[in-house]
Structures are given as structure tokens and as C-alpha cells.
């Protein structure tokens, strides 16, 4: 039987990048932008954090690292990188009214390439003499869990054993749910996503809201990449290790019907599905079955997609203008 005390923390660890991506994409989609560039943005967020941390670790070799800087430099670099990606997406789709799907796919190509390129060439480009990018010192700051977690048995393991970025992910998701539903800004944002023409007539600055939501969404998603490298992967960047989590995050948005609160539960569920193949006994002579078990999250996503579209309820629909560019003169 599955050892739940060991399984749940790993599932939650897997769920955090998905949750960041999902929250970011919900904020973006509420403005009517379907950003398929999220997988690329998460790579950029991750690698920019790595570049920042790498530079700082190189600068303080042999010396003492300041905890505050060791955490803030990667976070700021990561936020800056994903902000730039968000601005690029907005400039192309909002200002230049380009097709959102094509722009998003181009951003994913670029972002994944950017991550893998700098991940693979950072050492050569910076001319340093370390064999691999192993940012264990920075990672120690990121994955530092609460000091009393070890003394509380299974409770501590399941609830308190994560680095601070994991808790931020959950807080952000809850706050995003609150802000979308209860604040005036959230109301305006939803209006822009549902019907930009009406929002414009009501005096809401459609362009500003689209830019703001998409850029914030990208920054949130980028933190998911940062969490993955710094906490989950213990500061070791390996190319393509982040994998398809960005795409799963986009699928999660539909799974949780554009509600960040449901996103928390959904991402933990998916985090569990993502690693469940490790826990299903397959025997040594049937290694190929593991590959089939890895299929589970995708099959479940597909089934959920179909089921939500079958039910077709009014309150589980995407924002009405999702994916469409807005041009005032075409109303």
C-alpha cells in the first residue's frame, strides 16, 4: 500500500509549480488572453533565477552569503525575466493584435530554448571552472522548512515540511481567488475578459487591464519555474527537466473552471498523478508498464476536459472573449 505520509509531501512538492502556472494563467485568461506561452515563461522564470543565483554564488565564493540577498536576487531576476516575456506577449497580441495561439507557441519555443541554452551554456559563457550548475548553497535558503517541522511527526511532514515558495503559492492562489471575486479591480478585469467592448464603454482601460493581468500572470507563473529549480530540484538545473508541467498548468485552468481556489486542490491531485507511477508496483521484468502509468495525468486531463464540456454549465464557462483580440474600431 502507498505510504501516505511519504506520498503526500512529494505530491504537494510536485503540485507547487503546477499551482503557480495555473494561478498565473487564470489571472491572464480572465483578461481574455489565452497565453499558450506559459510553458516558455516558466522556463525563463526558472533560468533567470538560476542566472541570478549563479552570479551571486560566484561573487561570494569562499565567503559568506547573506541570506536575504541569496533569496531576493534569484526571485527578482526570475520576476524580471517573466515580466519581460509577459510584456512581449502583450505587445504582440494587445498592441499589435497578433494571433494569440501563434504568439503563445512562439513564446514557448523561445522560452524553452532560452532556458535550455543558458542552462547548457552558462558555465562556458561566464568562463567559470565549475563542472555543473549546482546551486546547493542558494537552494538551502529556498528549501529551508520551518524549524519545528521535524518534531511534529506526520503532521509536520505533511503540512510544514516545505520551503517558503510553496506556501507563497497557496497564499497567492487564495488571494487571486479573493481579488477576482471580491475587489473592484477583479470585477473590472472579469468585465474585460467577458466583453471588452462593454468594459471600454464603461470607462475601463481595456489595454491597461490586459497588460497588467498578463504581466502579473506571467510573473506568478515564472515563480513556478523558480520553485522547481531552487526547491524541488535542489538547485540543480538540467535541461528539459521541467518538462511539460507548463502545459499541464494550462490544462489545470480548465479543470478548475477558472477558480484559483479549486486550482489548489486540482494541482495537488495532479501532483499526485504525476508521480503515482513510482508507487504502482510493476515488477522488474515489466519496466515498460511504468511508461503507461506516466500517461495517467494526461488521460485524466482529457477526460476532465470532455466531461466539463459535456456538462456545459453556465458558471463553468471560459471568459467569453478568451482568445480574441480587441480592436475598438471593430465593435
Amino acid at each position: 500500500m502507498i505510504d501516505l505520509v511519504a506520498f503526500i509531501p512529494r505530491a504537494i512538492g510536485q503540485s507547487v509549480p503546477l499551482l503557480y502556472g495555473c494561478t498565473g494563467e487564470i489571472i491572464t485568461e480572465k483578461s481574455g488572453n489565452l497565453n499558450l506561452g506559459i510553458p516558455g515563461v516558466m522556463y525563463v522564470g526558472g533560468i533567470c533565477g538560476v542566472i541570478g543565483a549563479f552570479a551571486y554564488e560566484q561573487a561570494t565564493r569562499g565567503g559568506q552569503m547573506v541570506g536575504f540577498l541569496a533569496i531576493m536576487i534569484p526571485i527578482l531576476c526570475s520576476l524580471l525575466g517573466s515580466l519581460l516575456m509577459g510584456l512581449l506577449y502583450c505587445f504582440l497580441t494587445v498592441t499589435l493584435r497578433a494571433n494569440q495561439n501563434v504568439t503563445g507557441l512562439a513564446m514557448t519555443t523561445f522560452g524553452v530554448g532560452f532556458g535550455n541554452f543558458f542552462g547548457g551554456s552558462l558555465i562556458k559563457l561566464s568562463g567559470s571552472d565549475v563542472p555543473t550548475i549546482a546551486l546547493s548553497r542558494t537552494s538551502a535558503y529556498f528549501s529551508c522548512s520551518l524549524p519545528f517541522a521535524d518534531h511534529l511527526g506526520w503532521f509536520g511532514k505533511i503540512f510544514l515540511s516545505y520551503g517558503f515558495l510553496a506556501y507563497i503559492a497557496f497564499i497567492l492562489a487564495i488571494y487571486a481567488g479573493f481579488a477576482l471575486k471580491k475587489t473592484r479591480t477583479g470585477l473590472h478585469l472579469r468585465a474585460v475578459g467577458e466583453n471588452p467592448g462593454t468594459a471600454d464603454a464603461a470607462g475601463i482601460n481595456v489595454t491597461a487591464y490586459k497588460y497588467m493581468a498578463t504581466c502579473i500572470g506571467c510573473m506568478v507563473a515564472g515563480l513556478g519555474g523558480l520553485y522547481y529549480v531552487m526547491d524541488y530540484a535542489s538547485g540543480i538545473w538540467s535541461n528539459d527537466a521541467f518538462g511539460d508541467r507548463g502545459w499541464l498548468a494550462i490544462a489545470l485552468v480548465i479543470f478548475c473552471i477558472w477558480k484559483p481556489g479549486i486550482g489548489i486542490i486540482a494541482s495537488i491531485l495532479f501532483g499526485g498523478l504525476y508521480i503515482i507511477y513510482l508507487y504502482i508496483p510493476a515488477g522488474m521484468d515489466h519496466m515498460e508498464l511504468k511508461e503507461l502509468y506516466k500517461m495517467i495525468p494526461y488521460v485524466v486531463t482529457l477526460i476532465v476536459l470532455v466531461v466539463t464540456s459535456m456538462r456545459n454549465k453556465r458558471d463553468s464557462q471560459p471568459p467569453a472573449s478568451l482568445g480574441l483580440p480587441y480592436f475598438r474600431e471593430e465593435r
Partner: protein
Amino acid sequence: MKTKKSEPLFHIVKRKSMPIKYQMLVRLLAIVAALIVCAVVTVITTKMNPFAVFSAVFSGAFGSTRKVWITLQDTAILLIIALALTPAFKMKFWNIGGEGQVLIGGLGAAACMIVFGDKLPDPVLILIMLLSAVGLGALWGAIPAIFKAIWNTNETLSTLMMNYIAIQIVAFFTIFWEVPKGSGKIGIINQNTNAGWLFSVGNKYLLIIIIAILVTVGMYVYLKFTKHGYEISVVGESEMTARYAGIRSGLVIIRTMIISGGLCGLAGFLLVSGIHHTITTTVAGGQGFTAVMVSWLAQFNPFAMMGASLLIILLGHGASEISTSCGLNQSFGDIITGIILFFIIGCEFFIRYRVVFRKKGGKA
């Protein structure tokens, strides 16, 4: 309260239409601008002389006769995938599952090679491989189409999930058929007998290129001159109109996706039977996604796609030459491709819209 009303510096007006000549000029300028940016990026990261960069790109793609053929062959494969996706896009069905459809087609071909390798005569074997590849690709395209037609399921995400399902199925079979046991890969299939290897016309590259040209012409005719092609454009323009005109859009969606998936399966067959003679999870190499952009850049025009796919392949090969010679990571090509795409995507704005600046005196 504002008393002085300010007029914006410029405003944007939609163009009626732009002569093809100018459209091409705008796109050309965008590509030139993108190449300059790419060159700057390359010079900064590699510290190469900018002219050396361009000559490296050129020699990477056209440096020898063999390289020219390989460039053309890769262009042909990308072109077939882009053509396969085009009818779906014209119908506004965002099939980003090309990757999975190619892969599952390739798996179909490889499976026949392994199972029937020494039991059937070669022409029969190749025919069965082709049929199973096209059939599986079509099935992989039809599944999301059926969901879309009946329940209006979001096709962008369902086709995407089908990609990963295909990847895992291929991963399963690579371990199932691995040679030797424990290596985790299949290796070259039928290396001694060459059973199921695509026969060559002239040299081993030419047949694939000819097939690509035939598919291009066929797709042009299909979209432009047949009833199916017309129905596709009507469904793409407005589903309401289609319903009013008595076109059953669900049927058109499923039919078109069978064609789209089937052609992707053909590309998978060519990759396995004609080029790699093996199957891995990366045999499609992301081309299913690149093809989306090729098709869109060419504005769904099959002949323009020839140029677009050649451009993408050329830059990819060039960038890989640069990254090899400078000891950099192979992903450099993706960055270059990304930059080019951003510029071309952006330049469409100047084709569709006009920027009118504020005139002096306050009246525009």
C-alpha cells in the same frame, strides 16, 4: 476637470487591403530586421564576427551537397506537417496535436516493420506500413475532433493531451521492443535486411521531397477548388453561416481532422521508413509545434509554406552549426527561431492596420 482636450499622438486604422507586392515587402523587411537582431544576439553570445555568423549559417545549411539534400529533406518533412495542419486551422480548429499524430503514425510504421519485417515481401510491407501510419494518425486526429463536434470540447488542450498520450505509448513500445534488452531503445530496425525501408528514387532524399511537392499541390487544389475546401472556409469564417447554408459543421470538423491527422501520419511514416529507420519519443522533434507557426506565417497558402519551412529549417541548421563550432548548447536554434517568429508575427500588424499620426493644427 480637464479643460484642454488632448488628441492622441497617433491612432490606428484598419486597412482595406494591401497589394500583395507591399505585403511581401513588409514581411521581407521584418525578416531582415529579425536577422539583424539574431546576428547581434549571436555576436554577443559567441563573440564571433557578424559576417562569420552568416557564413556559418550558410555553410551549415548548404555547405556540401549532402547538407543541401538534408536541408531539403527536413524542409519537406516540416512542409508536410504544416500542410497537414492547414485545413484544420482554416476551419479555426487549433490542432496543436501534430506532434502526437506524427509520432503515433511513426509508431504504426515501426510496429509493422518489427512484426512483419521478415514475413512479407518488401512492397507489401511498405504499403501496410503506410496504411497503418496514416490510419493511426487519422484516428489520433479524429478523437479530439469528435469531442469538439459533439460537446464543443476545447481542441487546443485536447490535442495537446493527445500528444503526451502518444509520447507515453511510444515510450511503452520502445521498452517493449528494446534491442538489446535493457538499453531502453529500439535501435535501427531490420538493419541487415533493410525490410520496410523506403526505396530510393535517384538518391535517398529525393522521394520524400517529391512526395512533399505532390502534397503541396494536392492541398492547394483541395482547399481552393473542391467542395470540401469551400466548406472548410465557411465553417472557419462563421459557424452560423455554415449552419444556415446547410453545412453540417460537426461532420466537416471530423472529416477535416481525419485528413489532417492522416497526413501527419504520412509524415511519421516518412520519418520512420525513409529517414531514421527507428522510433523514439523524439522522432517528431517538436516539428508538430513549429509546423503550426509555419502554416500561420504562410497565411495558410501551401506554396508560401514552402518558403516558410525552408526559412525555419535553414536557420535551425545554421544555428546548430554555430552552436557546435562554438561549443554552445543546441537550443540556440530555438532562440533564433523564436526571434524570427516574433518579428514576423509582429509585422502582420502593419499589413492589416495603418498608423495615422496626429497632424499639426489638431485635425487628423
